[in-house]
Each structure stands twice: as structure tokens, then as C-alpha cells.
């Protein structure tokens, strides 16, 4: 089987302990924990069925349960809501509507500071008007989840249906209904950018290559639906358990919109069953649940069902791209124009806002290419559909489908190989660091190398030769090969968010290293996992940087009461920001250990070597103390006086805000067979060469890549969230919204190139999203290549059998 999780080609060249020999309190030299495929600590309890997801937490016996009344209409006036029958039901404690909740929760709003952005707010339960199918209009509070559902059935809402719009193209029609009262013309935002020489580039061009690309709406579908449990504690405090990716941001938002003291709130993230970005949104249900727990002075719990998840989780990717490239006779892109329109849905969702995909696509589309003249217009429109926010890859699967589709079209026009066109336009490694046309710095990378290595692994040249010799149609299947070489935004710092109008999104994360009295190490980090293996990977980082034994390090995260503030876990941040913060905190703690050990051993800190949970005098391994022996001094648990100037304990905190962004890169190559009869697509080969800088745990990195590719296969070939013309949902179950299964996803070949970041502490770059980003364009390009002889234009996704068989028939 080719999906070998240990198969990291090029591993080991880099990735040794980052601490140089000879520094004060130097760390372990040689083979560190970082770079090893350490098996996960998370596995044992999850495999035993002892995971504690939010619905698994023991709720207090007097817990109340919520169920929401969802609008069946995409757009309607609420004429009346009769809750009397529901409220009379035995076991129902209360039924509340939008006006009731408005007294407890302010309208929620994303804070976006972009010129021309139309600020808009959302009531946590709709008042007077509903704006998408599934928007909640009332909530039933009952003694059990079953009774709450019974109550929902008895709430009688009288709606006056109104015309709905769902498509980007309809939103700006002059006679279109206005979705949101503060969003004139249904345009949330329109951004523009242009360099001076774009027109000159197009005038000088030998060829202008243009295409419109369309991307279907999808949603992440983590297998665990969302949920939360709010438990009032003493003195009016509230402990709020949520399946969120952003516990600190959630706590701040709860404080703001509920108007309670942030210090009385504690947000705890239990195990989370996949997030993929959709759990990095702040949802109305969370505010309602917290508000009702405080109001009713009882624990309140809400667990979403799948129908609600599909309708109300944030969606993604409903985008149109019109791209034009001015190209010379060698296939070099002289200038690029992009007209990007994104469907933001009915409200600008928190915390990133409806412009996330808009500004993301506009800024990322230039990718690994030397685009020196560039202009874009980027528009986010409002429609009567679910709000759109983050899903793994944010904008990048689509903007790379566009630019990589353009590269293939250049190749076809000029009769060049698609790989050759890419190589001619790429920024070569020798020219890095390089700052792209929108000001994003690529510090290190391997665009050319990743493409060349992927071509070799995929036997690209042989495939092309076979195609040449035999033609594309063999045994009833059209075979094609598709490339996507791309940059992957990760580890975004505050400057990166500010550049996109997200001035209230911090960027930094925090780490605290606590060496306990027994010498064991607790590492607190401001992240929250949803399957990434943080308990393992962060321990690897700390072990190396502190000089501790891996088994002595315990990682604690996902709790606002444990450790300082941070920006939390989304957008491929954790290795970069959490890793960076833990490295800095570890260094402080290591230095303190060295100072204490030096005093105890009558040496100097400069001469203390820290490794394997021991501190010894350089060159004299026998003059050694364990972490525990040194910690006893710090905690006054022996007869050794704390040296002058030292404080008690060993507890060090630091923060890390990465640069603008930390740019990873990769190449994906997909080989497909399209059935000439029924249009089904088989993926016959899939190759990834990924560069996320210094790799912490190759096994986990490969897992991230493979999982991302699987989601990309779904997005490219089957997933589509469908509204009909009236805004009714056609994909309200997982039997309609199709996810890839074990027979749809092939085995992979994966290799890594390690180009450690020189801008980010630790050299790490993110890896969470690349799998998905590269899969969509490479598969779409492969299908286009397979059908090349038919002269059909493949510029949309998903590429379902019905679409492809029609294209083949009509060719």
C-alpha cells in the first residue's frame, strides 16, 4: 500500500533540535523529539471510547436542553409566533423568541475595518424577518432534549414568504430584494487593487488568456455536530463548554454581547470531533445557551443535529472568478486581472466576516508565480443563504483552481506542457525571500523543487508519453493528469489580519511552561485541538526546547482558565503560533533551571547543559541534577536557599505573533480516468510533495495532508450544497450532501521538502489546509486534461458524473 505515513522523503536533513550547542543552558543536542513520528497520546482514550466530546460530558442532573425552531423559508416576514401550546407542554420550561433574546443578547456583528464595508448585525434569534432557510426564530427550553424537540413541533409561526435570492449573479440586480437593511444593493464589500503597469502588460501581450471559474457552495461537515453546555457556578460565574476552535475569542464575544464581565466566564473546549474552520465561527446558539443559563440559573445544553448542521453551520466557496492573463510568446505572465465575486450569505458571520474569502482569494491567487502587474476587484454580496465563513483552505482551493486553470490554458494555447508553463513563471528558490505583488513575503520555499519532485514521483513524463502514443481514450476511459503548485497561507500574525480588515483579531498565541515540584513539566498553550494531535506535537517541541524527556511533558490547552490569552486554532496556526510561543517560554524556563542548577552545583549558568530532564556541568556529566532536584529548590522543598534575585516556582510565559503570514507550499499531481459512458471519475494516482518548513511529526503531517486531500476529492467531484431558486435547501441530509468514502479516496504518495521558515520562530510552517487546497485544482485540471481532445471547457466544480457525461455527450 503506497499510503505510507512514515514515507517522508527528504526527512532528516533539517529538523534537528533548534537550540545551538554552547548557548546558556543549552538544550538536547542531536536527535530530538521534533522530526520524529511519535505515536499519539490522544489515541488510547479515544480508541477505548473514552473521548469526552461535548455531548459526552456529564451534565448536572438539573440541566435544561434547548431546541431551536428553524425557518422553513429563505426569506419571509414573521407575522406572528404562537408559543402558548409549546409552553404548556409538560417538561417545557420556557419558549423564547427573538424579542425575548434581544433583551439578553445584543445583536452580534463581525468587526471588519475595510473601506466600503457595510457593517451589519444579526439578532441571535430572528426578529420580524428571516433571511435564510434554517435561521432560528425561537428556542424551546425543556427538561430533556426529546421534550425540547416536542416543544419545537408545537410552536406555531406565521410567515409571509418573500422573494428570495440565492445566486451571486442575482444579488446585484436592480430589482433584487435587499437582504440586509444596512447593506445597500446587497454589496457587503468591494475591494480594488491595481499596479501601474497592468494596462501596459495587456497591451504588450502576445496572448490574453481568459476564463470564468465557478465554485459550488460546500460546508465542512465535521462528523461531530456542534454543541455547548453552560454551567452556572458560584458567584454568578459561568463555565461554558463548547465544541469551538476559538475559546478565547468566544469568551470575549460572550462577554461583549451578553454584557457580562469576561472574568466571570470560563470557556472550556473538550474533545472536538473535527472542526475544519466551521467551528472557528461564533454562532447564535452559543450566545443563546449562555444567556439562558445565566437567566434561568440552571445548566443549559444544546446539541445540534445533522439537519441543523447542514443548514446553519457556516458555508464556503460559493465564488465566481473571472481571470485574464496577459502572456508573451514564451508563456510568461506579464499581467493578471482577477474579478472575484463571493457569496457572503445573509449575515456577515463572526469573527472573520463575510469578506474572508473575498480578500483571501484576491490576495492569494498570485501563488508561487512571479506576477509583477496585477489588478483585482473583489466583491462580497449578500443573499438569502447561510452565512459564509471559514472552511479548510479558505478561498485558496478556488483561487488556485483559477490560476492553475489559467496556467493550463496558457499551455494549451502555446502548445507547451503545463508543467513547463508553471516552471517558467515560478519564483525560483534562489530568489527567495521574495515579496509578492500584494506585499506578502515568501521567506523560504521550494516551488520549483516540489513540482519537479512530484513529477518524478508521479512518472509525469511517462504518463505524457503514453498519452501521446495511445491517445487519451483507452478502454472506454479518458485519462488525464493535473497539476496544482501553490502557496499555502499559514500562521497569520496580527499584521496579516489587519491587512484584511480584521483589526480585532489578534494573531499571537501564548505558551506557559511550568516545571512542577516533582520536575515534571506542564505546558499550557492557547490552542484547542479538534484532531490535530496537539498533546503529542506540542510535547515534542517542549521536550526539545526545554531539554526535558518527552514522557515528562504534559500539554494542557482549550481552557481559558489555564494559561494566558491567544488567538486559538484555525488557519493552520498552531504549529507556528503555539510552537513559537512554547519555544520562547521553554527557553525562559530552561534558563531559570540552569541558573538554579548552577547555584546548587557551584557552577555558572553558561556551563550548565540541559538534556533529557537532567542538568549537568559541561564536561562533567557526574555533576548532575534532575529537573526534580532543581525544582525542589524553586519550590523551597529542600534545605537549599533560593538564590538571590530568583522568584519561587518555575513558571514562564511568553507570546508569539508570527509575521504577516508564514507561507508553506506544495505541489499536487492527480491522475484520473473519466468513464466515457457514465462520466464517473476514478483517481488512479495521487502525489503530494509538501513543504511546511521544519516538520514536528511526519506521521501527523502526512495525516493532515491525506485528510485534506480526501476533503478536496469530495469538493472536486461530489460535494455541493444546493439551494433551489426559492432558497429551499435540497441537500438537508448526508444522503443528499455527498461525502467521500473509503472507496472514493485512493492511496497517496507523499513526500516532504523541509525549507524551515527563517521568519517564524522554530522554522515551522502550517500544514492544516494544503491537502484540500491542492486537491481541488489538481483534480479539476486532470479531468480537463482527460477531456482535452473533446474540446470541452471544464471550469466548474463539482465534476459530478451527470455534468461530465453531458459534456462528453455534447462534445
Amino acid at each position, binding site marked *: 500500500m503506497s499510503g505510507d505515513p512514515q514515507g517522508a522523503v527528504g526527512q532528516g536533513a533539517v529538523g534537528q533540535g533548534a537550540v545551538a550547542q554552547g548557548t546558556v543552558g543549552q538544550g538536547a543536542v542531536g536527535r530530538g523529539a521534533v522530526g520524529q513520528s511519535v505515536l499519539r497520546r490522544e489515541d488510547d482514550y479515544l480508541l477505548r471510547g473514552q473521548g469526552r466530546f461535548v455531548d459526552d460530558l456529564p451534565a448536572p442532573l438539573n440541566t435544561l436542553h434547548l431546541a431551536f425552531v428553524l425557518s422553513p423559508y429563505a426569506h419571509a416576514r414573521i407575522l406572528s409566533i404562537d408559543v402558548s401550546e409549546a409552553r404548556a407542554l409538560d417538561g417545557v420550561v420556557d419558549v423564547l423568541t427573538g424579542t425575548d433574546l434581544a433583551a439578553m443578547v445584543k445583536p452580534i456583528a463581525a468587526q471588519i475595518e475595510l473601506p466600503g464595508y457595510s457593517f451589519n448585525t444579526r439578532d441571535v434569534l430572528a426578529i420580524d424577518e428571516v433571511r435564510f432557510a434554517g435561521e432560528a426564530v425561537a428556542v424551546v427550553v425543556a427538561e430533556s432534549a426529546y421534550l425540547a424537540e416536542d416543544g419545537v413541533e408545537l410552536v406555531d409561526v406565521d410567515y409571509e414568504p418573500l422573494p428570495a435570492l440565492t445566486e451571486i449573479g442575482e444579488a446585484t440586480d436592480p430589482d433584487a430584494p435587499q437582504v440586509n437593511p444596512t447593506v445597500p444593493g446587497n454589496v457587503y464589500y468591494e475591494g480594488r487593487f491595481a499596479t501601474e503597469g497592468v494596462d501596459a502588460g495587456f497591451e504588450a501581450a502576445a496572448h490574453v488568456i481568459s476564463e470564468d471559474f465557478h465554485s459550488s457552495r460546500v460546508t465542512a461537515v465535521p462528523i461531530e*455536530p456542534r454543541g455547548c453546555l453552560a454551567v452556572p457556578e458560584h458567584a454568578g460565574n459561568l463555565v461554558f463548554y463548547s465544541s469551538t476552535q476559538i475559546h478565547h475569542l468566544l469568551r470575549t464575544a460572550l462577554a461583549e454581547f451578553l454584557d457580562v464581565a469576561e472574568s466571570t466566564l470560563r470557556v472550556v473546549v473538550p474533545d472536538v470531533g*473535527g472542526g475544519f474552520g466551521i467551528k472557528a465561527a461564533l454562532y447564535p446558539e452559543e450566545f443563546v445557551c449562555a444567556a439562558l443559563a445565566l437567566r434561568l440559573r440552571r445548566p443549559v445544553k444544546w446539541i445540534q443535529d445533522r439537519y441543523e448542521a447542514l443548514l446553519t453551520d457556516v458555508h464556503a466557496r460559493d465564488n465566481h472568478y473571472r481571470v485574464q492573463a496577459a502572456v508573451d510568446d514564451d508563456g510568461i505572465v506579464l499581467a493578471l486581472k482577477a474579478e472575484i465575486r463571493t457569496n457572503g450569505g445573509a449575515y456577515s458571520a463572526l469573527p472573520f466576516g463575510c469578506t474572508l474569502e473575498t480578500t483571501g482569494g484576491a490576495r492569494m491567487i498570485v501563488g508561487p508565480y512571479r506576477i509583477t502587474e496585477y489588478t483585482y476587484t473583489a466583491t462580497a454580496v449578500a443573499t438569502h443563504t447561510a452565512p459564509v465563513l471559514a472552511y479548510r483552505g479558505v478561498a485558496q482551493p478556488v483561487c488556485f483552481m483559477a490560476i492553475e486553470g489559467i496556467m493550463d490554458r496558457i499551455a494549451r494555447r502555446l502548445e507547451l506542457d503545463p508543467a513547463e508553463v508553471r516552471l517558467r513563471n515560478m519564483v525560483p528558490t534562489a530568489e527567495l525571500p521574495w515579496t509578492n505583488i500584494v506585499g506578502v513575503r515568501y521567506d523560504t520555499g521550494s516551488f520549483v523543487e516540489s513540482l519537479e519532485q512530484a513529477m518524478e514521483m508521479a512518472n509525469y513524463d511517462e504518463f505524457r508519453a503514453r498519452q501521446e502514443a495511445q491517445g487519451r481514450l483507452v478502454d472506454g476511459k479518458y485519462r488525464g493528469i493535473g497539476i496544482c503548485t501553490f502557496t499555502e497561507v499559514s500562521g497569520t500574525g496580527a499584521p496579516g489580519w489587519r491587512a484584511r480588515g480584521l483589526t480585532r483579531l489578534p494573531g499571537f498565541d501564548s505558551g506557559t511552561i511550568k516545571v512542577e515540584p516533582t520536575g515534571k513539566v506542564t505546558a499550557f498553550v492557547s490552542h484547542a485541538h479538534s484532531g490535530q494531535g496537539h498533546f503529542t506535537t506540542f510535547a515534542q517541541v517542549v521536550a526539545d526546547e526545554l531539554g526535558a524527556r518527552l514522557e515528562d511533558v504534559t500539554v494542557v490547552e482549550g481552557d481559558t482558565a489555564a494559561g494566558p490569552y491567544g488567538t486559538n486554532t484555525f488557519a493552520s496556526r498552531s504549529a507556528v503560533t503555539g510552537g513559537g510561543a512554547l519555544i520562547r517560554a521553554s527557553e525562559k524556563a530552561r534558563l531559570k533551571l540552569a541558573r538554579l542548577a548552577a547555584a546548587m552545583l557551584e557552577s555558572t549558568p553558561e556551563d550548565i547543559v540541559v538534556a533529557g530532564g537532567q542538568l549537568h556541568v559541561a564536561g562533567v556529566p557526574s555533576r548532575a541534577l534532575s529537573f526534580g532536584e532543581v525544582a525542589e529548590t524553586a519550590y523551597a522543598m529542600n534545605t537549599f536557599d533560593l538564590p538571590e534575585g530568583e522568584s519561587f516556582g518555575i513558571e514562564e510565559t511568553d507570546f508569539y505573533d508570527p509575521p504577516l503570514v508564514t507561507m508553506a507550499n506544495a505541489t499536487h499531481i492527480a491522475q484520473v480516468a473519466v468513464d466515457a459512458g457514465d462520466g464517473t471519475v476514478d483517481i488512479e494516482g495521487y502525489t503530494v510533495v509538501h513543504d511546511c518548513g521544519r516538520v514536528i511529526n511526519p506521521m501527523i503531517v502526512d*495525516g493532515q495532508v491525506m485528510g485534506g486531500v480526501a476533503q478536496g476529492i469530495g469538493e472536486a467531484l461530489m460535494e455541493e450544497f444546493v439551494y433551489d431558486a426559492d432558497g429551499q435547501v435540497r441537500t438537508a441530509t448526508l444522503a443528499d450532501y455527498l461525502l467521500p*468514502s473509503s472507496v472514493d479516496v485512493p*492511496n497517496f504518495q507523499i513526500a516532504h521538502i523541509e525549507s524551515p521558515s527563517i521568519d517564524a520562530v522554530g522554522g515551522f510552517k502550517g500544514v492544516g489546509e494544503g491537502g484540500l487546497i491542492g486537491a481541488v485544482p489538481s483534480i479539476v485540471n486532470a479531468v480537463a486534461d482527460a477531456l482535452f481532445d473533446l474540446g470541452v471547457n471544464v471550469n466548474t466544480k463539482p465534476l459530478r458524473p451527470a455534468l461530465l457525461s453531458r459534456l462528453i455527450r455534447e462534445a
Partner: protein
Amino acid sequence: MTDEYEVTVTVNGRNRASRVEARRLLADFLRHDLGLTGTHIGCEQGVCGACTVLLDGRTARSCLHFAVAVDGSDIRTVEDLADLDELHPIQEMFHQKHALQCGFCTPGFLLTAVELLESTPDPDEATIREALMNNVCRCTGYANIVDAVAEAAVQLRQGRQP
């Protein structure tokens, strides 16, 4: 409030008797009445497979059964696979092969794999993929799960006791 009915089942080898509403889902009964929260609910539509248990030895969606309707049956859940010291060989291979990430779908995959390997001790890759195709994993991309089941089959054939 609806009437309650007596239900007596064997769960993981233990006799369990309880009174439940007729509409109580088996999944909720296991999770919230018996405290066996390893069985997860992902869709309540019978599609995702996270709630898979073994019902009289065969995989079943516990979200599509009412507890009263399985009165008298023998049920195995993920909590029954390991002993205090050692994981079941299938679980151990999931660990070794990194066949889980968030772990939410994992119990359903494990029980599906148990059923497969009890009936087909030496499955090829295609057989494994087909057996797993009704369980959805959104994290792993499946390859490591397929590997883990294949390797567990080897271990079990070599006589490692579950």
C-alpha cells in the same frame, strides 16, 4: 409524556434492565442511560456510521433503532474491545498506523472492522475498503484506516487474542 417500557439487553456482557420511552433511540439509551458515551451520534440519518454497534454480532446503526425494539438482544460497543491493560489488536493498529485524528467516527470504524475480520480473516484491500464504505471519516482520508485493518488482520491471524 409518553409511556415507558421495560427493556432488558446484554451490553458488553452485562445484563442491563431499564425503563425507556418507546421513542428512545438505542444510541441515546446507550449513551445517556447506560453512560456508554463511546458510541457517537453524527447524523441520526443512518449515513455516517459513527453510532455503529454490534447487535447480536452484526453491525447496526444505533441511531436507527429504538431501544425497546432491541429488547433481549446482545449488544457490543466500543467500550468492550480493550481490557484494562491492552487494546484490541484492531485498536492497537489504529494507534500504530495513525488511523484516527479527532476520534469521533473511530468507534464506528472499529466495530465495522471487528465484524469484517470475524467473517473475513484475510481480506484484501478492496474488501476492506468496501466493508468500510458506509462509515464516514472526515479527518484521515481513509488510507491509514485501511492499512490498520489490514495489519490487524495479520495480527489476528497470527493468533493475537482480541
